[in-house]
């Protein structure tokens, strides 16, 4: 210990010197602190105050409830289901694993889910809420809410999620909603701020997409004071959102369900059922389909891949796929010829199985030929030679004009995003699009609905309805938007009744007279007789060589190269109410593959229930009964889906 006076003096000198140096250093440091404080609080004060306001006030969009979609009887086809979920904010939870343990006592958290969530929580920034339990039921939601004071950092949240009670039946017609992608977010014509909301869904396909703006509603907003975790503390201002409009469709969910079930055994195909008097679409089904509910919460990559492996399940075949209409187009050629006055009903043409035109040989589907064919027989037995001859006489321009009048080659005004116009070729079209001159052969092919001609099933159904009614029936899917009733109007077609009667007579005989191409699929009962027309559209060229060797039967061809099977028809034949068009892709012949399905659909619509066996020819009743038993439809179930319809 320093006691010596000399040392004390010396020490004092040292301490004084060093003390002063320390003082200078400390003063400098305090000066720097003070200056920085001045810079922050005086020089940059207003800048930081702005930032603070931005921090504090958060404008939150209020998402409107999406409009619901109903069928003609008020059954919900697209509904909104309340969804409850549990979120965790790590920064507030502290020891979040312990919090998860506590949460696990209230709701079940499987160990593997727990592990995943822990990973996710760790990987996110500490203030970002992480969903720890999606879609919990109301009891769990209430239990968590009640316990939230003791569960630090845990929030229970509720929202809506789209739900399709009859998902698979309406996969193409209703479509589905999904998260907004970057392309949709940047569309100049749709700058709705709702698109920026993270969980917001918009319609992707079908009615959901076609009527998206109607169903979506208008966003409201809330100006709220938030804390650092984004938790609302106080509401400053509010504008309510406007919910989307409810939409009522013309379809009948039971009919739709029946049609889908009836098409179920086909690999790919479509059926459209119309109400002739109003043009209302009663059922519009496309095979194969998919489960739209899976898309709502986000479909996994693998599931999507699996879907891709099927025959285009996402394609809405009824309105988007254009097929060569084949013989169902013969009515168009016939009416064009009638209007031009080029034939009388009694004129006959000889069909020997083939004819010569412009140095080419044209073949009838029936190799032996039909013999002498008059107008009605030409429809009933679907003679190709008759229509080649007519087409050559009438010319493509007249045929095209008549086709347009009957509903081909144009788009109908439907609230669907993807509607095909099909194709009715003209000379001009070929010159422009194919840069080659129109050939007589092209006209001949068009006359029997082959070649360049293509049409959607909906267009074929509309043609059928127009022929059956004589009026310009317009297809209609929407009955009501909000409280606005959509009117249906159909003017006259301007075609003479006696022409149409002759066509109808032919179509009646197709089904109801022996030798008619669809005689096998006739129905029994005076008031429930069907009229219709088969079609078998070839999608390959049959070479002369093959003809020599013998045309390969459809069954022996690879599926992809087989003919499409078509049938269009209406019921009842004497007072038409319902029209149908059925296409079975690569189904073989229209009479074999499409007509039986069409008959069942028409009878189902006509009877308003599963058609009675008495409506079928006696010999077929056993097999029909078998087939009906196998149908997997709502009407046959003891407890129709009520439980899943929340």
């Amino acid at each position, binding site marked *: 210990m320093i006691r010596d006076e000399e040392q004390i003096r010396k020490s004092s000198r040292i301490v004084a010197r060093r003390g002063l140096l320390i003082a200078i250093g400390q003063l400098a440091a305090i000066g720097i*602190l003070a200056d920085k404080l001045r810079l922050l609080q005086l020089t940059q004060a207003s800048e930081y105050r702005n930032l603070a306001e931005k921090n504090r006030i958060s404008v939150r969009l209020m998402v409107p409830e999406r409009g619901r979609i109903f069928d003609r009887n008020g059954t919900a086809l697209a509904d909104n289901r309340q969804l409850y979920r549990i979120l965790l904010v790590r920064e507030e939870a502290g020891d979040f694993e312990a919090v998860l343990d506590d949460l696990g006592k209230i709701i079940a958290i499987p160990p593997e889910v727990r592990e995943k969530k822990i990973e996710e929580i760790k990987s996110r920034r500490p203030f970002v809420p992480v969903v720890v339990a999606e879609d919990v039921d109301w009891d769990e939601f209430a239990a968590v809410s009640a316990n939230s004071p003791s569960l630090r950092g845990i929030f229970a949240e509720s929202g809506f999620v789209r739900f399709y009670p009859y998902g698979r039946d309406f996969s193409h017609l209703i479509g589905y909603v999904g998260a907004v992608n970057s392309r949709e977010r940047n569309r100049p014509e749709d700058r709705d701020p709702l698109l920026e909301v993270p969980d917001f869904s918009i319609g992707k396909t079908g009615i959901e997409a076609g009527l998206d703006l109607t169903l979506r509603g208008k966003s409201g907003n809330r100006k709220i004071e938030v804390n650092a975790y984004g938790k609302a503390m106080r509401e400053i201002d509010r504008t309510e959102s406007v919910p989307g409009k409810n939409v009522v469709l013309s379809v009948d969910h039971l009919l739709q369900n029946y049609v889908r079930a009836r098409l179920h055994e086909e690999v790919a195909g479509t059926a459209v059922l119309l109400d002739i008097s109003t043009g209302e679409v009663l059922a519009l089904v496309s095979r194969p389909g998919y489960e739209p509910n899976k898309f709502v919460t986000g479909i996994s990559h693998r599931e999507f891949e699996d879907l891709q492996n099927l025959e285009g399940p996402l394609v809405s075949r009824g309105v988007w796929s254009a097929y060569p209409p084949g013989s169902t187009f013969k009515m168009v050629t016939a009416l064009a010829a009638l209007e031009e006055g080029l034939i009388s009903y009694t004129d006959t043409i000889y069909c020997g199985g083939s004819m010569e035109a412009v140095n080419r040989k044209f073949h009838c589907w029936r190799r032996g030929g039909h013999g002498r064919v008059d107008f009605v027989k030409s429809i009933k037995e679907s003679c190709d030679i008759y229509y080649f001859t007519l087409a050559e006489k009438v010319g493509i321009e007249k045929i095209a004009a008549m086709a347009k009048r009957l509903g081909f080659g144009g788009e109908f005004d439907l609230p669907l995003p993807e509607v095909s116009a099909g194709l009715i070729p003209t000379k001009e079209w070929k010159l422009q699009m194919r840069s080659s001159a129109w050939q007589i052969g092209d006209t001949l092919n068009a006359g029997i609905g082959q070649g360049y001609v293509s049409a959607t099933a909906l267009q074929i159904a509309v043609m059928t309805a127009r022929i059956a009614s004589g009026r310009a029936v317009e297809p209609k899917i929407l009955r009501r938007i909000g409280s606005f009733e959509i009117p249906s109007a159909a003017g006259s077609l301007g075609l003479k009744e006696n022409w149409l009667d002759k066509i109808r007579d032919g179509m009646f005989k197709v089904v109801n007279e022996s030798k008619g191409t669809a005689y096998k699929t006739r129905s029994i009962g005076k008031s429930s007789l069907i009229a219709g027309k088969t079609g078998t559209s070839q999608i390959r060229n049959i070479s002369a060589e093959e003809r020599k060797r013998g045309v390969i039967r459809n069954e022996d061809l690879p599926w992809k190269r087989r003919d499409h099977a078509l049938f269009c028809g209406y019921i009842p034949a004497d007072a038409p109410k319902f029209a149908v068009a059925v296409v079975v892709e690569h189904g073989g012949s229209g009479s074999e593959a499409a007509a039986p399905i069409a008959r069942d659909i028409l009878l189902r619509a006509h009877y308003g229930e599963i058609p009675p066996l008495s409506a079928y020819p006696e010999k077929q009743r056993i097999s029909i009964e078998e087939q009906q038993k196998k149908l997997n439809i709502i009407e046959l179930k003891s407890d129709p889906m009520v439980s899943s319809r929340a």
Partner: protein
Amino acid sequence: MTYFASQERSEPVGIAKLMHLNWGLMLLVISASALGVIVLYSVAGGSWEPWAGAQSLRLVVGLAIILGFALVPIWFWQGIAAPAYLGAIGFLVLVELLGVSGMGAQRWIDLGFVRLQPSEFMKVALVMALASYYDWLSLEKVSRPLWMLPPLAMILVPAEIIRNQPDLGTSILVVAGGSIVMFAAGVSLYYFAGLGIAAIAAVAFVFWSRGTEWQVLTDYQYRRIDTFLDPSLDPFGAGYHITQSKIALGSGGWSGRGFLQGTQSQLNFLPEKHTDFVFTTFAEEFGFVWGILLLAIYGIILGYCITFAIASRRRYSSLLVLGLGGMFFLYFTANMGMVMGLLPVVGVPLPFISYGGSATMVLAIAFGLIQSAHVHRRR
């Protein structure tokens, strides 16, 4: 003879010593602590719970400690410097052992009413021990390398234990605080100059090596440094707290947003708002004027320590007061520097203002010792 004259001459005894305290210093300490309680009240959203009430209670205890320590002669405190230092080391090791047996990193011992953080006590014990050592060591030996080994060991051993806890911030402050005592004791300036050059060279080397195959730090650590240098690089990650802290501070302006009106702190934008980041609330609500006032209080306290140290004719007291003042200085500088974005984020409390049991106790002990040195100065 006047009262003041008698104060100068006579050695006070017993309770009469209270008259000889430096009451000006006491007043500064008490007013700074009162500001602390007010801020803690505000931080809790205008409530005594959970911080302001408990902190007031601790202040009463702290005041008693100051008075109690002040009454005990300074030579007693000098005499127990070595046992106090060894006790603090033992305390640190004990916590380390408990930490190993317990869950994860543990820096404290829970006594029920207060959690004792041995690293806090170490700061005072180290200054006491170093001051005592240099009081004992004759002046000629101060700068001799051999005689520098014991103080260096006294500094580095606890620093390493604390760094291992891990609490890098406190560890660095312990080293810096110890260095101040060595500096005050008269260790040759060449050592400090050499240390400074070495430090600059090391920093330069660290940055120079970046991007080469043999870089000294990991990429992650470099990014931490980048974020410190420019918080906007990572507004939601490591830079988030500093950015938010600056927003709160800056929005306070000249006169502040008013008591209980600080939107940023009231709305939880700030982390550790009652401990390490308490100054942001203080500055946001009370503004520049009060911020400078607080700095001034700190400055005057430091000024008192230095003038006392220079005037004191007791070497132990001089070094003790300079060392304690230096520790005090390092703490508020590190804390304010951090919240204003001048220094990296290290968890150190703001003296008198931050909520905390150990910190308050240790501050009381430090100021008790300073008062004791004052009361028992050579007249």
